[in-house]
């Protein structure tokens, strides 16, 4: 979100901080056996998203189904200059089945950007991003933001099989080191990932953790972060209805200084302090 968007308009005019609009589909094609890549053309406000923020998409109805609520979808790429944003999604239910029917030129009602994204501390030199499943898409925009901030990234990307890894090319294009771990190769288990992380920490390549998409990999990073006093951020998923903090459907429990506190993922998150998250 641009800094200007938060400043009230000079002449009392209303200035929204999230855009609700009909975006135009530019591309919507499969990238592997499970995921599709959606690119839409939208307003500058909608395209001005930070990594980790999300959008609410009003998915068109696929044949024989009628999704009613909008679906939250994390940002995969934003280009404010070209006024474009990108999503990576897996066809899993009525909403994403509807999304898959969209063709270039068609419109998609969309609200965003929403929520709190990842924060990069300029003091960090090297960070680690650990993702699996939808987390591979959610972590993607970190690659460019870190490069712009002069922060090096090692991405550990986990999937069932090598051909299902996503975002590896994106991270490499932004100068990141990519380590892929897969179930098929027997490298994705928490013990092996912990060994990889300990190796990176020993080399001074982990000033902070960024993670999304795996509860057991979150636990590994939490225990390492606790043991070595390192910070971390996690992007969490939750079923949502409104996406704006109105309905209180997306609450999760967090550990805040030993007390269990409920927070709305859509407002307080979706990116949270990794140490507060309860996997």
């Amino acid at each position, binding site marked *: 979100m641009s800094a200007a968007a938060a400043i009230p308009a000079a002449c009392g005019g209303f200035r929204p901080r999230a855009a609700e609009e009909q975006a135009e589909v530019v591309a919507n094609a499969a990238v592997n056996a499970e995921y599709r890549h959606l690119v839409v053309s939208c307003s500058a406000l909608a395209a001005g998203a930070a990594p980790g923020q999300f959008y609410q998409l009003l998915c068109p109805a696929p044949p024989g189904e009628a999704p009613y*609520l909008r679906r939250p979808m994390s940002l995969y790429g934003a280009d404010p200059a070209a006024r474009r944003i990108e999503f990576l999604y897996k066809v899993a239910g009525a909403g994403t089945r509807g999304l898959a029917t969209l063709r270039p030129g068609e419109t998609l009602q969309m609200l965003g950007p929403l929520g709190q994204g990842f924060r990069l501390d300029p003091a960090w030199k090297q960070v680690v991003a650990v993702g699996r499943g939808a987390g591979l898409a959610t972590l993607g925009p970190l690659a460019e933001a870190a490069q712009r901030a002069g922060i090096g990234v090692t991405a550990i990307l986990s999937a069932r099989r090598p051909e299902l890894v996503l975002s590896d090319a994106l991270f490499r294009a932004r100068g990141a080191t990519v380590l892929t771990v897969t179930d098929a190769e027997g490298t994705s288990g928490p013990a092996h990932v912990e060994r990889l992380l300990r190796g990176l920490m020993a080399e001074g390549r982990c000033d902070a953790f960024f993670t999304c998409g795996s509860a057991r990999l979150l636990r590994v990073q939490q225990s390492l972060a606790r043991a070595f006093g390192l910070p971390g951020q996690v992007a969490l998923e939750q079923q949502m209805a409104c996406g704006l*903090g*109105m309905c209180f459907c997306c609450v999760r429990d967090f550990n805040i200084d030993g007390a269990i506190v409920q927070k709305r993922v859509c407002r307080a998150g979706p990116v949270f302090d990794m140490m507060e998250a309860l996997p």
Partner: protein
Amino acid sequence: MTDLSVRIGGLTLANPVMPASGTFAEGLGEVIDLDRLGALVTKTITRELRAGNPLPRVAEVTGGMLNAIGIPSQGVPYLLEETLPLYRRWTPPLVVSISAPTVEGFATLAAEVSVAGVAAIEANISCPNIEEDGRAFAMRAASTEAAVRQMRAATGLPLWVKLTPNTGEIAEVARAAEAAGADALVVANTILAMAIDLQTLRPRLGNVMGGLSGPAVKPIVLRQVYQCARAVRVPIIGCGGIATAADAAEYMLAGASAVQVGTASFINCHAMVEVIEGLARFCEARGIARIAELTGALRQEEADEDDLSWVSPAP
């Protein structure tokens, strides 16, 4: 230009459109200009600190959704110290929705929220998600009258009473609320409902039962507004499945003086603004000078051919 203002029990609203309690928070102000609304209505608060219901709290169904949020509440101090100052930046009157487990609790809470910055109280005596088996005060005339009478004695603010659609006695309940001193009735809360997941064979809501809202409920609640409007003289605020100006116009013709838009805002943040603009166009197209003239203007005598053109859909 049509005069869009309406009178709701001592309060004048710039227009008849406001959010339904539970579907609105300040976050909507990041997307639409809240100063355009007729009123703002808070999520229900209780004196007790409540965590809310187990997840999942929402389930999508045909034509709408089920919810069993369970009124998470941070209590009265939070309302006074955090919520009310937050809403000072907007001009529409602020309506505070309250709920309590007992008649006495309703009265105490009504007194506690009767402070500067609160324009009216909406008494949620109809939430299906906080009492066992979906029970609520508004299911019976006697319990409605008891709760409203005590609140009436406890506050000088306009008192709106939100009724439940989960009763066969809605006209009697409406009369009881009016007799006990309600300034307006909100008709209605959600319809008690449930859904089952056929993969897991589990209920689709953590609370098992919840409230149905969205377009699916509109014809039912519209009928209840009609029944209540025939039973009482206090203004009625229609609430149930309103997503468009046409929906709102139907509610006003059935007897509502104002409307609340809830679930529709979840999929279209501009729904309330579109309802306001559409109602204005509807009135202008028919030469109606004051929107208040729509209230109860349902025609029930036999129509001849010329009359039918008047009731064609809104542009």
